[in-house]
């Protein structure tokens, strides 16, 4: 991988305010900025080159430790606080990290009573996209990754969060956005969500519990075509010691061939992290 070329391409999405946009023509937004920071960290970019991005991201932090979408809507998208904690940890902003973790551990999804006819435990607490709503796979997985990376993998919220994710795993493998099935019929697994959930469970979960998901990604890897699907598949399989050489070749080819039109900088950044081999999402 030509690290400096990928770093330059990521930085080409940055804007004069210091942040970075999802797509060209958009304003700065937290998620692409945070993932770009991790991508640049993974390829060894200099602190000087990442300083404006980090400063923009740190400036989004609210007094309660949460991090929102952008300066205009800083009370929205608080699920991004977990990703912010990872970035602050990796880039040495300890105080900001601790405040972000304080918010993450205080944010709880709403629970509802179990239905005896449905194989899903609605009483488990995970993390919501929006405060005051139900828990879903992706925000729960990001929060777990943050707690793991920052040395809080044994926290009671992390313990329950892992139960939550395992509960939502589709029996034949993979994760949908939140429910393993409806009316006893399995939902389809999503590649990116599956990869992220596997990374979140790495290290503190019996591998046998997630083997169907790992096997699924390995078996279906040729069907995966999108940058973020391929990137998360590489990140997850590699974190469990499985061979990703072919996948990485495909991901590299894809990232090299993507035109700027329609290129999602956040997904590109995850691709760069995956190709770097640096374990930024693992403790």
């Amino acid at each position: 991988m030509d690290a400096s070329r990928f770093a330059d391409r990521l930085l080409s999405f940055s804007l004069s305010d210091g942040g970075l946009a999802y797509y060209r023509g958009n304003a700065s937004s937290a998620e692409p900025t945070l993932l770009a920071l991790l991508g640049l960290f993974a390829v060894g970019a200099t602190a000087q080159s990442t300083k404006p991005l980090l400063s923009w991201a740190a400036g989004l932090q609210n007094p309660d430790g949460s991090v929102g979408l952008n300066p205009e809507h800083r009370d929205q998208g608080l699920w991004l606080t977990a990703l912010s904690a990872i970035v602050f940890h990796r880039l040495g902003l300890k105080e900001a990290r601790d405040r972000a973790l304080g918010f993450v551990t205080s944010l709880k999804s709403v629970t509802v009573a179990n239905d005896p006819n449905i194989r899903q435990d609605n009483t488990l607490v995970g993390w919501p996209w929006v405060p005051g709503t139900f828990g879903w796979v992706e925000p729960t997985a990001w929060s777990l990754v943050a707690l793991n990376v920052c040395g809080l993998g044994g926290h009671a919220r992390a313990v329950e969060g892992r139960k939550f994710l395992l509960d939502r795993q589709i029996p034949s493998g993979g994760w949908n956005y939140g429910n393993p099935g409806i009316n006893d019929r399995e939902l389809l697994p999503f590649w990116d969500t599956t990869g992220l959930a596997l990374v979140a469970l790495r290290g503190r979960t019996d591998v046998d519990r997630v083997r169907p998901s790992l096997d699924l990604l390995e078996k279906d890897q040729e069907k995966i075509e999108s940058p973020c699907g391929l990137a998360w598949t590489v990140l997850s399989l590699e974190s469990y010691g499985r061979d990703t050489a072919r996948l990485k070749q495909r991901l590299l080819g894809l990232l090299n061939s993507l035109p700027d039109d329609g290129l999602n900088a956040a997904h590109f950044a995850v691709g760069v992290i995956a190709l770097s081999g640096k374990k930024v999402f693992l403790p």
Partner: protein
Amino acid sequence: MKRREFLRGAAVLAPAAALGNLAHGGQRAPAPAPPPCPVTLLPMPDYGRDMGKEIAAVMSEDGLVLKGKKVLLKPNFVETHPDRPINTNPAVIAQVAHACLRLGAAEVVIGEASGHRRDPWFSVLNPKLRSILDKRVICMDLNHGDAVAVPNKGGLTGLPAFFLARPVAEADVLISLPKMKTHHWVGVTLSLKNLFGVLPGIYYGWPKNLLHFRGIERSILDLARTVKVHYNIIDGVVGMEGDGPIMGKAKPVGALVLSPFSLAADATAARIMGFDPRKILYLVQAGRFLPGLRPDDVVFRGENPKRFATQFDCLEDFKRMRGGPFF
């Protein structure tokens, strides 16, 4: 969790003040009676048939002026399954886009904030969709992008504002392009329900659970009051019956439903599906501020709707919504 059950429980969390506004058989808007809403049924037996010219002609006849305008087409992408017609078919999207160019639109954007699947590769950024589009057509993933806060003109959900994807807020013309499907929470999903996809997931999540908590029907109605839709084209070439909007089966109908009036389009599509729109709660309530609910509100153009009338299979809970014959 069975989501329908969950939502029944979640409804308890909605603002109590709003509950009095939602009931079957709500009052209709007072007189004077609005002029009839034109609805056109275009036969399209399969997706291989190019209907671009016919679609442009109908839009023009309906008075839709696109010359020099920024047009945003809002299809329905939820998630992708190889065997299920969940999403608006790319052929329909492409033909409508090309019809808009034919009518002189300055810019045609296809934009969607897909409700379940976050990866835009499975929505408007799919290479297969892009490969059949005129190079002038722009595809935008509305889940990940700028949004503007617009005041909620409804008030049923208690949300003070909606964060509307900026390309939607800035479009001169918004065209809703839903799929004709049953829906396991509200009966049917058509043009009005399709507006959930103008709200970015980075604000509302995947799924847009905040709207579920505030009440799906309330959210549909608030959005209908807040977001101006200029035209509606429902993909009924192959719809979805049974456990829609994602777990159902294909139901060929062979028609596109076109109208400048969202409720008229939805009510007509519901009747074609074998449902009485006056038994579908959110359609009834939309009839308090939108024209097109009653059969008398609609004037048909094109094919006789009787040709397409059928009965969509549905979950047991929704069989009470059935009715007809309507045509």
